[in-house]
């Protein structure tokens, strides 16, 4: 996807397979990631997101398929070029945040200066605190700092804001935006559709180990729903009236999926629709997933 924008993607995955016994956790996925973009992998629990991302990170061996980093099949040096924030991570205990960062920095041949990591992840206020005594948001910022220890070009974030309060999530988004602004490429798995819409330039939606949709979030929403949905009570629509935008019945309402909201509203008024009780909403990725799979995101 989007190969036309950048002919040499920073990461390309071709026909990747990974099974555990009879369960096909990853079933032939292929995609490409543009350098400098934020690439989202969405899907419900058990969709294969984490398995896919950990195979790509070379944590697990794939059963088959190819992973290319800057056009080359990934090898031993791949780990020196990527940063990883796992979904669940424990660290060695009784170390301060600074000592933890120093530990991981020393594992790489070309580490990023610690002070830069501290600034990039806003770690100043708790840099000398025991890493067991951090709040959820502080801990995720520290883990992001660890993922940046080697100044990676490609950063994997696996559900980094799960369990954080809205304020901490927003703070984390701003950090990721800052990292993107430095030209880094981010691959993000998330349950939060607002997070994906806010951060991701491109997404894939996975279910049962397969990619069921891919593209830019806005384009996908336009493709499937139009710009917005206008809901009108069923009784407010004159019998036999027809309109240019597609519609469907939803619990006593007629939902019009509109490509142009203003034009559609004018058309509805002209067609005799009573606007009392009307609502106008943007569709989101949750709606998209519901439409694609028939089930909501967990």
């Amino acid at each position, binding site marked *: 996807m989007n190969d036309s924008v950048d002919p040499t993607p920073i990461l390309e995955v071709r026909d990747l397979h990974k099974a555990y016994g009879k369960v096909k956790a990853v079933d032939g996925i292929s995609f490409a990631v543009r350098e400098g973009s934020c690439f989202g992998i969405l899907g419900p629990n058990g969709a294969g997101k984490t398995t896919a991302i950990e195979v790509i*990170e070379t*944590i697990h061996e794939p059963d088959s398929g190819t992973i290319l980093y800057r056009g080359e099949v990934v090898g*031993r040096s791949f*780990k*020196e070029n990527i940063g*990883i924030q*796992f979904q*669940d*991570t*424990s*660290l*060695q*205990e*009784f*170390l301060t945040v600074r*000592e933890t960062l*120093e*530990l*991981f920095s*020393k*594992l*790489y*041949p070309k580490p990023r200066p610690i002070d830069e990591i501290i600034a990039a992840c806003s770690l100043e206020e708790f840099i000398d605190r025991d890493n067991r005594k951090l709040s959820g948001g502080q801990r995720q910022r520290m883990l992001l700092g*660890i993922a940046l220890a*080697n100044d990676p070009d490609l950063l994997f974030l696996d559900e980094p804001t799960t369990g954080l309060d809205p304020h901490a999530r927003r703070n984390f988004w701003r950090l990721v935006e800052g990292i993107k602004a430095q030209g880094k490429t981010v691959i993000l798995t998330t349950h939060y559709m607002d997070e994906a819409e806010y951060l991701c330039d491109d997404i894939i939606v996975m279910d049962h180990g397969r990619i069921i949709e891919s593209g830019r979030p806005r384009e996908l929403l336009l493709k499937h729903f139009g710009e917005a949905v206008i809901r009108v009570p069923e009784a407010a629509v004159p019998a036999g009236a027809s309109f240019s935008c597609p519609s469907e019945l939803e619990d006593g309402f007629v939902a019009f999926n509109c490509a142009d909201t203003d034009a559609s509203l004018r058309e509805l008024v002209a067609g005799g629709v009573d606007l009392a009780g009307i609502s106008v909403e943007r569709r989101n990725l949750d709606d998209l997933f519901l439409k694609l799979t028939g089930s909501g995101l967990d």
Partner: protein
Amino acid sequence: MKKFWAVFVARNLEFFRDRSTLIFNLAFPIILILGFAYAFPGGGGTTFKIGLVGDRPAAGSVEDVAFLHYKHLQFLPYAGLATPLDRLAHDQIDMVIDFSKREYYVNEASSNGYVLEKMFAAGDSSAAAPASGGIFSRNTVSGTPIRYVDWLVPGVLGINILFGSLSGVGFVIVRYRRNGVLKRFKATPLSAFQFVSAQVLSRFFIVAFLSTVIFAGTDSVLHFRMAGSWALLALVNALAILCMISLGLVFSSRIKSEEAAGGIMNLITWPMMILSGVFFSLEGTPQAMQIASRAFPITYYIEASRAVMLDGAGLARIAGDLGVLAAMTLVFLAAAAALFKWE
């Protein structure tokens, strides 16, 4: 090397900052040693031990004295006279009878020896065989008695090394595997060899440090017998620590659950504690038990360290024990390297 030291330093900081673990690791063996020293200030135990040299006399012969048939006496056969006499001098046994020369030996400073000699000389009027009077000539030896705590301290240090190494490496790696620390390291360029070797060296440093503190601390109060070379004792300890750590690596190489690790650790440690001569001598125990004890590295450690501390043994005498410890270490390391998995 930078990666190795980073992991080494982090592991040491983790251990020394965990005060409860540190205190427990220091306090338990010290309390054990002091407790035994208080409970058994002398030679320890009340069993009478008699060393026998030469072929045991035929039933009904003149040397087959009634004393040899008394109950509750432990007779220990020896090939030569030197070893039992040395043990007699240090109060490790209570009497020696040499059938070939019709001689017996006692340590005049030994209370057990005094009682045994009375029994030996008086005989038993109900027995068919004669008493010893007139058949065996009397000899005496002298020497500094070895207290039970002198004899025990290598065993306690051995237990400390055993638990410190197995839990410090085994449990820690299993815990790291279960909670994802190993997975986090796997995501870096750190190799399994670099990680494991850093753990081994870190634990070696910690256990050696703890053993030194425990020994020095209790020695300042109890003044243990040290007949041999400190350097040789340090070598024995170093090899034993490496061996136990390697054993810990084997059992932690794949296990994910701390509960399973605990079960396996019990399976390893309890037989070692019981069958390796930590708390009591294996002399006179059933042969099967003595054969089983040869399977455990701690047996060789205890033998070698007791030989150095109590008998002043040199390198040549304990070379066999050191060789077995070194061989076991290599086997365990090879097995751990073959079996180790990050996840």
